[in-house]
């Protein structure tokens, strides 16, 4: 199978800005992209009721997560174009970042030379960013995602998905265990990411069976939304604006690092390494069968989320639907061949599924692992988590 290297650009923006982003992308000639609805969280400062109520209230706002692919030479230009076009340098409008991916089953050419090189210094500079993805039972994401806000790191985005794992090996009894998941997406400075991950593990009690799964992945470059509080401003510039300027002056976010100490201790045996994150993108309805095939080949499970794919009319491959599913499967590096073989065998690249695979690195992952636990094996183990291979 022919592999291609590309950069996946991910923009997470407020819903009111979608049409402006789409028209900017259309001007640049980007016609193939996928959109997933998300909600973003922020803290709202409420100064009422004699302080009897919580001072910071969590507010949810609708947003959209948009993905598109560019060639390696276009990474910076694309990020810069999006960030300037949507004024993402102003905190509170959204984030944009890039990830290096290996593409399998991607028939078309990766777009080159779409984005004009803009004048002046590029606005997207932060390197050393790390992405955090956390899969939890439906209804629990707000509490865990709030950690990123309380730590003052960045604005988290949450999307919906459906988990597959041990649950799907129970036969029809699976209907008795809810499979709906919430997926938290956070991009944070690499200096804070591990602390954040540990705090999220503690808040979400991910060291218990069936609670969830979290992993870190590298981000190439990006601009992260840092507007974590809303409310009346009492200064000429908000703290977020000052941070944004300092980031720009320093050219990096390393100056923000606050502590070397690990705030939360997590048993290191539980971290899993040498991982790859496979995103199997296929027509809606094909995902479950493909994941089952991957599970038979040794994958522990997957989270399936929906994505609406938009194409340039002429370039639409035959059989490819607008309703797509993204099945995220984390596997050990040495199992990649086997899982890909199983996926191909079960028709991933055929017309019905019209699938493709994005392969990305994952830095480290964590979930409850009965092999490493002194607790007795519980039936719930891994029902909702993406059990590791």
């Amino acid at each position, binding site marked *: 199978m022919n592999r291609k290297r590309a950069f996946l650009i991910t923009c997470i923006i407020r819903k009111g800005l979608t049409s402006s982003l*789409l028209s900017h992308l259309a001007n640049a000639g980007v016609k193939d992209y996928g959109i997933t609805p998300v909600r973003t969280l922020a803290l709202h400062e409420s100064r009422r009721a004699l302080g009897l109520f919580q001072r910071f209230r969590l507010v949810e*706002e*609708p947003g959209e997560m948009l993905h598109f692919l560019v060639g390696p030479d276009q990474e910076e230009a694309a990020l810069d174009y999006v960030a300037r076009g949507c004024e993402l340098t102003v905190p*509170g409008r959204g984030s944009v970042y890039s990830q290096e991916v290996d593409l399998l089953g991607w028939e078309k050419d990766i777009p080159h030379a779409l984005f004009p090189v803009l004048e002046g210094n590029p606005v997207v500079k932060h390197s050393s960013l790390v992405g955090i993805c956390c899969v939890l039972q439906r209804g629990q994401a707000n509490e865990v995602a709030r950690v990123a806000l309380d730590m003052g790191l960045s604005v988290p985005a949450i999307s919906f998905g459906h988990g597959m794992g041990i649950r799907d*090996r129970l036969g029809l009894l*699976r209907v008795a265990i809810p499979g709906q998941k919430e997926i938290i997406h956070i991009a944070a400075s690499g200096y804070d990411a591990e602390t954040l991950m540990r705090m999220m593990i503690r808040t979400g009690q991910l060291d218990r069976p069936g609670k969830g799964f979290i992993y870190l992945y590298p981000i190439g470059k990006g601009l992260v939304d840092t507007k974590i509080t809303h409310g009346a401003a009492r200064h000429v510039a908000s703290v977020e604006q000052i941070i944004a300027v300092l980031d720009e002056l320093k050219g990096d976010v390393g100056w923000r690092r606050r502590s070397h100490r690990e705030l939360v201790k997590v048993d290191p045996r539980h971290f899993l390494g040498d991982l790859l994150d496979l995103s199997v993108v296929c027509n809606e309805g094909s995902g479950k069968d493909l994941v089952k095939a991957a599970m038979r080949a040794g994958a522990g499970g997957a989270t399936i989320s929906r994505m609406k794919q938009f194409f340039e009319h002429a370039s639409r491959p035959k059989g490819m639907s*607008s*309703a797509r599913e993204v099945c995220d499967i984390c596997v050990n590096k040495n199992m990649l061949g086997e899982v890909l073989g199983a996926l191909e065998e079960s028709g991933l690249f055929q017309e019905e599924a019209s699938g493709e695979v994005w392969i990305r690195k994952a830095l480290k992952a964590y979930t409850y692992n009965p092999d490493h636990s002194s607790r007795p094996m519980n039936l719930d183990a891994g029902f909702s988590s993406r059990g590791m291979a």
Partner: protein
Amino acid sequence: MQKPGQKKENLKITLSQRLEILGNYAKIKVAEQLKSVALIISYLVLFQSLVLGMEILDAGSIALGVVAIIVGLAFFMEGLVLGIMPLGEIIGLRLPEKSPLMVVLLVAFVLGVGATFAEPAIGILKNAGMGVKPWEAPLLFLVLNKYPQYLVWGVGLGVGFSVLLGMLRYLHGWSLKPFIYVLVTCLLGLTGWAYLDPTMSSVSGLSWDCGAVTTGPVTVPLILALGIGVCRVVGRGGLENSGFGVVTLASLFPVVGVLVLSLGLAGLSPKPMSREEFYGPANRAEILPLFKDEEHLIRYVLENGSESDQLAFWNQNKEEMAAFLKSLVSDQDRIRRIFGEDPAGFSRWLSRKATSQQRDWVLEARAELLASTQGQIPEAMSSFWELVHRNILISFQAVIPLVGFLLFVLLLVLRERLPQADEILLGILMALVGMVLFNIGMDTGLTSLGNQVGERLPASFKSVALPEQKVILEGFDEKAIQTAIDEHGKEHRFFYWKRDDKILAIPLDEKNMDPGGKRYVHVPVKGPILGKEKGWEGILLVVLFALVMGYGATLAEPALNALGLAVEEITVGTFRKRMLVHAVALGVGLGMALGVMKIVLGIPLFLLLAPSYVLALGLTRCSSEEMVNIAWDSAGVTTGPVTVPLVLAMGLGLGGQVEVVEGFGILAMASVGPILTVLAVGLAVARTQRVSLEETSE
């Protein structure tokens, strides 16, 4: 941990582990439904026992019914989520991609028409129409009693056309707003015109109520899921169509359908007249078109007319009436034509409705007829098995044809396989079981409770007789009768009755006195509970009752819960199901309160509908497309199997006591309420979001 290459088969787990998983699952699902019905049940029980101060009859069977409702709802909702909604969504996903436009539209149309026939909520309106007085509202009587099948077709075609138009909307990315502006303006215009026309005015309430009840608990989730599926494959970026809006059209077009149908039938209907004119022989030719034939007219007169009405019908000539009844005895064929195919129809009329004189005439003519039938007068109470049988039939009728049609489209038209077939089939089965249990529960539990409260409700503002608590006073002597005078010097007769340790003064009703037999039948009277007769305090109590009942009943509506789930899913939790359901419930409560005021105070429906819809149009103008779709859809889903029987019980109870022409319009008001509340909540949410976005734009 799994080693590479190792195959994973189904997990082997023990029976106790299986039971533990199932037990947890059942506990969660039942607890959810318990929460949703808790308010309405406890409210009705408390209102009946504390406010109205009356005991609850058949408490045991009501309690069992409530349990059946909760378990049934748990099954049904799970069946919707597992089976019916995924099925609708798969078809929505595949249909536009694999079929030409004509097939998509045909499927949509058939689905819409079929849904109306599968879930005959209109039957409920027909029942409500039994109290319509043909002399006051002849056109309404004509539509409901002579041409109910036209009514069902009018509504069905309206719904079919709506689903078709809804699909076209998605495929072309049209906004819902222009449809709403045009339709609502036309409808208000038509209703306004109908309001001024004495013949048409009575049907406007019915037509708006028809719009409200068309979409049942199977149709709504199915149509929603279908729309959501279609919207996932069509449309362009930035457009906000996400699958809602069809239910809106399906609530508006049937109103058009029924109004047009009524216009068409208006020529056949006589003008409204007085009761005397109706029963009198002079207008016989004019009123005959209201009935199928003369036999149906006679049956109506015999069953609904008072003694003097019947006398008027037979030219004030007792002999003529007697001759007619006597002639009936020997003419079995005519009996069948008058009283229907039910062989006991005649004897039931004889034993329940006929006057003693009429009974004597018939007895005289054929003494043995009554003797042979007296022992066999069928009991009104149906047996338990009959109840189960009837509800199984209703549930299968609601689920199987629709699901069967969709499976036919998927397997034979689209030639697709059914993904996750085991799960979907299990879901459909659960929906069926749930619906049977739910319907049985409604019949024995909630409807009975609602009827008890509904019948007694007017006691809060006026005095109401309680015939089931009547006491026969033996040895009644006329000497015991006393006289009281009022401030105008008018005399009123009364007597003292010693009951337990108390001596009560009872106003004398001469009709209840049987001097020959020395008996007096005392029928206790209740009310007014608050204030004086027809005082504002009592009316306020009724209005408040309607508000809380509407709110509580709506929380339990399965179709609304399905809509809430879909909205939460589409908005990734930014518009929570809980928020939507409570906003809608509040709207229904407010709408019902207004609807009850319409009935109690006799306000014309148009004067309530017009300002509400004008306000709704104004809010629609300011709201986002997504919110408009959700809010107007909420209007269509609110009035379902929990709310409608309760509203009818209340409406009939009130309508019977306050002498109104027709009790329609409560449901119509309960539909416009949620539009207003949901749009208002949506605007409030949008405002906070806009403020925070504006903070970031320079």
